[in-house]
C-alpha cells in the first residue's frame, strides 16, 4: 500500500552551475539563470510503501511522517535562497530534479522503518511542472 503526505514551502533559487560562465548559464537556463534569483511555491508529495500494522492499522503514523518532513526538509528549505543557504545547492544546480534527489537523500534513512520504506518523492515547482524520484535501483 502507498501512503502520500503533501507539504508546501516557498523558496528562491537561481538555475546556475557555478562551474560555468555567465554566458553559458544564460544559454543553458535562460531567465532562470538570473543571479538575483526568483522563487516558487513548491509542493512536495512524499510516498511511503508498506502494509498496515496488525495492531495500529497504520502503514506509518502520518503525524510522525509530517514531523520528519518538516524537520528534514521544510525547516531547511522554507523561505531560503537555496543556492546560498541550503547545501548541496552551493555546488549542485537547484533544479526540481536535484531537489527531488536531495529530499530523497534526507528522508530515506529516517523512513527506513520495520514495516515501511520511502517509495517516491514528487516535487512540484509549479502546478504544471513536477518531478518524481524513486531512488536508484539497488
Amino acid at each position: 500500500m502507498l501512503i502520500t503526505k503533501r507539504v508546501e514551502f516557498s523558496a528562491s533559487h537561481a538555475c546556475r552551475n557555478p562551474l560555468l560562465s555567465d554566458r553559458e548559464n544564460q544559454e543553458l537556463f535562460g531567465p532562470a539563470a538570473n543571479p538575483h534569483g526568483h522563487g516558487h511555491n513548491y509542493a512536495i508529495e512524499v510516498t511511503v510503501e508498506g502494509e498496515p500494522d496488525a495492531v495500529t492499522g497504520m502503514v506509518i503514523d502520518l503525524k510522525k511522517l509530517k514531523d520528519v518532513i518538516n524537520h528534514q526538509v521544510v525547516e531547511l528549505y522554507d523561505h531560503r535562497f537555496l543556492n546560498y543557504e541550503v547545501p548541496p545547492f552551493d555546488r549542485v544546480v537547484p533544479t526540481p530534479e536535484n531537489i527531488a534527489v536531495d529530499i530523497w537523500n534526507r528522508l530515506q534513512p529516517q523512513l527506513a522503518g520495520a514495516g515501511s520504506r520511502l517509495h517516491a518523492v514528487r516535487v512540484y515547482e509549479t502546478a504544471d511542472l513536477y518531478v518524481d524520484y524513486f531512488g536508484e535501483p539497488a
Partner: protein
Amino acid sequence: MTRVTRKYRFSSSHRLHATSLSDSENREMYGKCDNPYGHGHNYEIEISARGPVDPRSGRTLDPALLDRLVEEQVLQPFDHRNLNAEIAAFQDIVPTTENLAREIFRRLKTNWKSSFPGAWPVLDKIRIAETPRNIFEISNRNGEA
C-alpha cells in the same frame, strides 16, 4: 534517474459517432455524445519523460524543448479545433479520449528523436483528462499503443 512531468491544456470539440454503426446504434452507444453538432472539452494533458540527471544542467529534460514539441504536435493542431472535421486521424476512427490519447502518444513518439536526439530522456507516459473526472493514461513501458 528522475521522471519529469509537464502539464498542458487545450480545448477542442468532438462528436462520438462510429461510421460503421447505424444512426440508432450510435445514439444507443454514445447517447448525448453523439449530438451531430458536436460538443467540447477542456483537455488537460500531462507528458512524462524519464532519464538520468545531467550533471552540467541538473536536468533530466529541458522543458523548453518539450514545450516546442508539444506546441507543434499537439497544441497547434488540436487547440480550438473540431477533432472530427479537422484532424485526419479522426476521419475514420471515433475521437474518444482513448483514441485521442493514442494519436497524441503516436505523434510524440514519432517526433521524439528530432527534439531529443540523445539516448535520454525517453517518453515515459501521457495522461489525458477529458474532464476532471475522466482520465486516460498510456505508458511507454510495455510498448502499449
